[in-house]
């Protein structure tokens, strides 16, 4: 009834249609149909082995054969340390004053977050997406949606957790979005990933004051990242005549090309304003 050629063409059309529908569904729903952890569990042990071997070899070089540069660096660090000790004293005084004032206002103390340190064992194989694999998973209490940070700033959030490994979407990934504030003027917007060394700060109204070198922090309103976590510094501000929003570029504080260890915040709690009874 039908020729072989016709069957092949119809088969191909059906396959393409089903393929596009499934791909569209998985993109919209972020669903992996329960298969999202298979590859992580299989390949990550080998990634961990290779990454640790490379770091071991590099540490031997850095710690035993590269000591001349370390000696110079040590001198510079000592000088910096002396300066920072002075600054630390000032900050300690400010911290004490802050505590006293908070007590006066009956604000609840900022919560102490429980964090899990993790090591980066692999990076995204494609140049298009920005994710990393870390060596902690469900067995360490990690789950989808937890924020991942460094002392310098926000790294990203867990998007897939397997038994002992997890996949983290970086702040600079195009699918990433963080509700953020300009620390100085409290102008609010959304930080979106753009590329390796910059993010876009969107939906900031032009009536607010935003300047180059302003620090951008997490607002805490997205329910993922605790308020106050540092994100980056404003590197460019421009405005179109017809637009009500600024066009702002932010340079993240974290160097995403060189991340080796990260901290996963286990139970972020929103800062509440409960009066102490």
């Amino acid at each position, binding site marked *: 009834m039908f020729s072989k050629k016709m069957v092949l063409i119809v088969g191909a059309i059906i396959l393409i249609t089903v393929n596009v529908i499934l791909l569209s569904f998985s993109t919209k729903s972020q669903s992996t149909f329960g298969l999202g952890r298979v590859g992580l569990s299989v390949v990550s042990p080998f990634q961990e082995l290779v990454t640790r071997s490379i770091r071991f070899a590099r540490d031997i070089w850095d710690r035993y054969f590269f000591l001349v540069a370390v000696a110079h660096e040590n001198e510079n660090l000592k000088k910096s340390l002396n300066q920072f000790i002075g600054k630390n004293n000032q900050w300690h005084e400010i911290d004490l004053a802050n505590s006293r004032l908070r007590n006066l206002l009956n604000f609840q103390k900022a919560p102490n977050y429980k964090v899990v340190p993790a090591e980066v064992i*692999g990076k995204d194989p494609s140049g298009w*997406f920005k994710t990393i694999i870390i060596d902690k998973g469900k067995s360490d209490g990690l789950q989808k949606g937890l924020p991942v940070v460094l002392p310098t700033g926000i790294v990203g959030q867990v998007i897939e957790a397997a038994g002992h490994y997890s996949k983290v979407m970086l702040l600079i990934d195009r699918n990433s979005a963080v509700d953020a504030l300009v620390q100085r003027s409290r102008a609010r917007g959304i930080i979106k990933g753009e590329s390796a060394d910059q993010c876009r700060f969107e939906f900031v109204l032009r009536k607010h004051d935003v300047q180059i070198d302003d620090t951008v922090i997490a607002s805490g309103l997205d329910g993922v990242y605790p308020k106050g976590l540092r994100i980056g510094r404003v590197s460019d501000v421009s405005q179109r005549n017809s637009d009500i929003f600024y066009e702002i570029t932010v340079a993240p504080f974290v160097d995403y090309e060189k991340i080796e260890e990260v901290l996963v915040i286990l139970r972020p709690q929103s800062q509440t304003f409960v009066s102490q009874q």
Partner: protein
Amino acid sequence: MRYGFYIGTCLFLLVVQTTIFPYLPVLRGMYDLLIPFVIFISICLPMRESLPCALILGLIMDNLSGSPFGLYLTFYLWLFIGVRFIIKFLRVSNKFLLLVVVIVAVLIENILMIATFAFFEPAGQLPADVFLIVAQQFLWALATGPVFLLCLLTLAKRFNLQWDGAAPQPNAYG
């Protein structure tokens, strides 16, 4: 021996491009090394072995990457179908053909990624460095893709690992 070779090669390529390349600035723009491998298995292995292998590789890549689930699976499936289709008409021993196949496959993968951004992402905007990424991958594929594929084919031939009678075209290679 044969399955050991394939599994070992897959793991090696996966681990290399997720752990070593990202730390070497010059290799950060490298194309997907599994493309030549999928072409290789499409040419050398019978369908009952190569199709599951391509699908498993796609699944693992989807797991390791931040791409929408199914993107690599889709690409490897269609790459497999495409290669099986063209070797019915063309001789695989033609090195120029291998060069063209690898480069076209790398470009198609990039087009698929760009299409994903354009059609499926909410904003629909392309990455700022889209041309840089495509250009880097194209140049790397041009320089190393066919060599890499030829190495795989030569290795398979030397260790007598290629098809065992169920290949798509017994005189296609060699």
